[in-house]
């Protein structure tokens, strides 16, 4: 395994995951809310 150290900081990770995760979570919640109508 390489001893290569990346320059990625925790802040970078939070920003990167947030950029993807927050819109994704919003989309999933919206979709699930709409999908519930299928079972009414």
């Amino acid at each position, binding site marked *: *395994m*390489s001893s*290569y150290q990346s320059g990625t900081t925790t802040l970078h990770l939070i920003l*990167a995951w947030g*950029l993807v995760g927050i819109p994704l979570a919003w989309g*999933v919640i919206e*979709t*699930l809310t*709409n*999908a*519930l*109508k*299928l*079972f*009414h």
Partner: protein
Amino acid sequence: MSLGVIYFVFMMIGSAIVRIPQEGWAPAGYVAPLQARKLITDQHVHVYQAVRTPQFWLIWWVLCLNVTAGIGVLGQASPMIQEVFTGHITPVAAAGFVGLMSLFNMGGRFFWASMSDLLGRKTTYAVFFLLGIGLYSLVPLAGSIGSVALFILCFLVIISMYGGSFATVPAYLKDMFGTQYVGAIHGMLLTAWAAAGIFGPVLVNYIRQYQVEHGVPKAEAYNATMYIMAGLLVIGFLCNIAVKAVDQRYHMKQGEAGAAGLA
């Protein structure tokens, strides 16, 4: 317009921050398998050699047939569930079904790609095909007995495998052809997706239309399509079974790999 702007922003951010890992990099704690596996090469195949191998075209058909089956129902999901269960499923509920399918499409990408690390790519595709054949064959039964739950369950699993097929194929290609040209090989393989984008909806729409014009009730008009999809998956299964390790004559030589940027 709005979606275009959103795609543009995300694409630009992605292209600006993505980096190729240094040669030999591995995640912390990663332990390479001790035993070499027959269908995972440690060699590299040039993109122009890859397209000359039977493996490329077998995997092309594997992806095309799997996606044809999935994309056909994905595009018709809303009218299909409303027609099969006329009077029971409203357009709003059908939209909910489509939304649920999109979640399983997404979740299937994580689930099946992760499963393929455990099962192996070839076995994972075999599962897609065998399970798919069973589920497509069950759909007409779900319609005839009026089981909305069984109908939904069948399509959610089918669509999870549609997503899983996309997510697993880059790793399948990497196992077959190595990492050096896997991006370009994957790009070429995606022509299978383009072809499936024509075959799938055309099959579902035209066969349904033909059935309706010949007096088949709308609720049963998709039955023949489902059996045809199951038949396509049988062919896909056979293509997948035929995939063997790439012959070493296609492998890049040490000097070629170095010249192409490999250490």
